[in-house]
């Protein structure tokens, strides 16, 4: 059974379909990338998969269970973690606290069955710090440091610095560490290398390779296609809300529809469909409309 299954999902904003009948699935352990030009609907799709937004139509199933009617905070509890396109670290929290928050839905206090019990537990634990809570906190802390250690000396020396003081690349790393702290069954990364220089990008690629080798399931949005090609098992190409191609990286890369989506429509070049040639001749006729008066 597929881990994630997206079935004919659509989402419209003010009548414009940002995501238009998108379907695809991914299996446990796979790395799938979604690529496409700006405004293709990639981030909207991420928001739908993580419960921050709701589809107008379609179904999203995770491990066989439909997620559509769950409250946003339930998605994390099922093991879905994400990073954000423009970065959403908690600016005034320390690096360590940022990462620890990733474990929020794993903490004992949040496992209560009713909201009342949950609140009572949080309050009790917060006031009296029973030893079980101390131990849990210490274990999580050790785990967080282990995760941060995977970035070498990038973040460990900055453990107690507020996240806003970090460089852009480091903030992205913190976000990924926070997501890993959830022990995600599905990790969604939205442009993890945006704003990174080539050296940092190469480092991130290596890191993602390690994750992948460990069997982490990854759904990736990325613009740096060389990275996508090296990392992905499969690539899903979106344009204007639709999936226009899907398949192995090499196949997708040479797909004419993909090239067209990125470069724009060839109007006079070779191999253009007949109806497009017709459209390209329209301007001559239209010019007459404009040229009535001089500017």
């Amino acid at each position: 059974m597929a881990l994630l299954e997206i079935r004919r999902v659509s989402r419209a904003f003010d009548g414009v379909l940002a995501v238009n009948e998108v379907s695809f699935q991914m299996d446990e352990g796979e790395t799938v990338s979604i690529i496409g030009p700006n405004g293709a609907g990639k981030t909207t799709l991420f928001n739908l998969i993580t419960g921050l937004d709701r589809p107008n139509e379609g179904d999203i199933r995770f491990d066989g269970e439909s997620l559509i009617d769950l409250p946003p905070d339930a998605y994390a509890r099922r093991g879905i973690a994400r990073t954000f396109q423009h970065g959403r670290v908690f600016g005034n929290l320390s690096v360590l606290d940022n990462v620890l928050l990733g474990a929020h839905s794993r903490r004992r206090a949040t496992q209560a069955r009713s909201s009342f019990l949950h609140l009572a537990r949080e309050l009790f634990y917060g006031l009296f710090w029973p030893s079980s809570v101390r131990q849990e906190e210490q274990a999580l802390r050790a785990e967080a440091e282990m995760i941060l250690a995977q970035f070498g000396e990038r973040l460990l020396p900055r453990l107690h610095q507020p996240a806003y003081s970090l460089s852009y690349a480091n903030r992205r790393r913190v976000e990924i560490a926070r997501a890993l702290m959830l022990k995600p069954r599905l990790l969604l990364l939205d442009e993890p290398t945006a704003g990174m220089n080539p050296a940092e990008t190469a480092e991130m690629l290596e890191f993602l390779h390690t994750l992948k080798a460990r069997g982490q399931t990854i759904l990736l949005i990325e613009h740096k296609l060389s990275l996508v090609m090296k990392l992905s098992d499969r690539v899903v190409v979106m344009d204007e809300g639709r999936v226009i191609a899907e398949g192995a990286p090499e196949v997708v890369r040479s797909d004419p529809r993909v090239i067209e989506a990125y470069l724009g429509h060839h109007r006079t070049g070779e191999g253009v469909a007949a109806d497009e040639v017709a459209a390209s001749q329209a301007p001559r006729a239209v010019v007459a409309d404009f040229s009535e008066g001089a500017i």
Partner: protein
Amino acid sequence: MESFLRTFSDQTINGLVIGNIYAFIAVGLALIFGVGNLINFAHGSVFMVGAYVGWVCMTWWNLPLAVAFVVVALVCALVGMAIERFALYPLRGAPPIAPLLATIGVSFMIDQAVQLLFSRNPHAFPNPLIEHRFQVGGVTVGAIDLLIAGVGVVAALTLYAFLRFTRWGWALRATAQDREAALQMGVNVNAVNRMTFAIAAALGGIAGLLVGMYFNTVYPTMSFQATFKGFAAVVLGGLGNVPGAVLGGLLLGLIESYGVAIFGATYRNLFAFVILIAVLVWRPDGLFSLKPRVAQEPLTGTFIAKGRPVPTPKWLIAPLIGVAFVLPILVPNPYLLQILTNAWLLGMVALSVTLVTGTAGQTSLGQAGFMAIGAYASALLVLRLGWPFELSMMAAASISAVLGTLLVFPAFRLRAAYIAIATLAIGEIVNQIILNWEGLTKGAMGIAGLPPPSFLGWQMIRPHEIYYFSLALLCLAALTQWRLVRSPLGRTWRSLREDEIAAQAFGVNLNRYKTLAFGVAAWIAGLSGAVTGHMYTYISHETFTNTTSILALTMVILGGMGNLLGAIVGAVTLTALPEVFRGLADYRYLVYGLTLLLVIRFRPQGLLGTD
């Protein structure tokens, strides 16, 4: 039946006339919100300035009414421009809550300045019109009604023509619709901002003059009521929607007028607050928008400046507490002890504010409402049920926690400036309920004869006794809060302050954690209210007002948001400062307002830094 019809039509006329005035206020607020995306808390103060300038024109200078209108409009326009220039323009680029807080500071300053100039007492406002009431088809209409209606129509037409047909009017509309595009057309948007303030202030001032004439009186506290009526009208019509503001004003006037006819005059102010909350929560785009959608709100809900807290060495805490404990022995001055007792009790309120606003990021201006609930609960438990104080105090705090959280709960979905208005309104609703639920609270009479606080047989009558008791409670509250904010719970609270979306993506249930924050805060504020009530031995709906709420927030901003020691330092500073410099006592609110303005402008992280 006939008398009912007459009453009904009289109330309709009444409502429309008052509504007309609300519309004046609301249009100004809508213009400012539209152009500057700012909720202007100083608008009512400008309105009051208009009323006083009108009063001066007519009683001191005996100017004709028409001239008074012109003078009022000009003076208020200047005041509006000055507010924009000196309080708001320097805050460009600051988080959106900063200019809002600055306008609160400005309103404190203007209100106190007017009090100093003209005294707290109301002045009779002469009515220059002929006292004649017309009977039109069974409806009674006075000359003043006609004047207000006439001025309203003329002003509406003038504004419409200005916006529609003049270059500046176009610049204003373009800026309101798309500030960046307007810039690219060559519009000087800063000048447009200032002009908008001038127009809004002139309209507000004229409204003040009309209200003075209508009720034949001017008084300093008319300012706050006007601000709130304006907010309610603007929210009804949809924030930033000018025609909507006019309709919202008229509608509010009618609702109030009919409501008063049905329930009685003391209910007058309740309607505006209830409408405000209801619309904000259930229809944030106002009644007249065609397709309701969630109003745009900034993501950061509170006023947290970057910067780390000033490190406070742990060893310093014990000596500080020690000094506070030996002080009554060293300086047995009852006056000083009384002031410090106030500081400790207000310090608890400041702690509660710093929890919801600083740590959890929900800007609260309604903390006095929790105090009032605590004070009344304790008073009633002691006086009616004969409970001992130590028990009633704890019960009162818990009642405040439960009731307070339930009251704020509908506003949980709001953020930033909206939750600030909503909590302010909730604080006000608490006082309105106290005023009107006479069977329980004795209404406007208040409750007298509260026994002084006692603890296990210890009756606290002398100043140093209550001093120690409140100091102990403050330390207890600080310790409780310190444990909470240092725990994983505190981390979760901070995460929702920083970014609700990201917190939610990691499984944080926003409503539950807001409930917890408001619950704990209302508990502490309620406890402070209970002790304060018994210390005063008398409480009424005027004991715990929005002024206290705003003062508590100012203390927190001064000390540094989310900073526990900062809240206490802020409380001591602002309580003691006007007393230490005895000359300042009369200028107390001027000091508070100025402090707020200066801190926001020059040290947004507060004295001890945000945490």
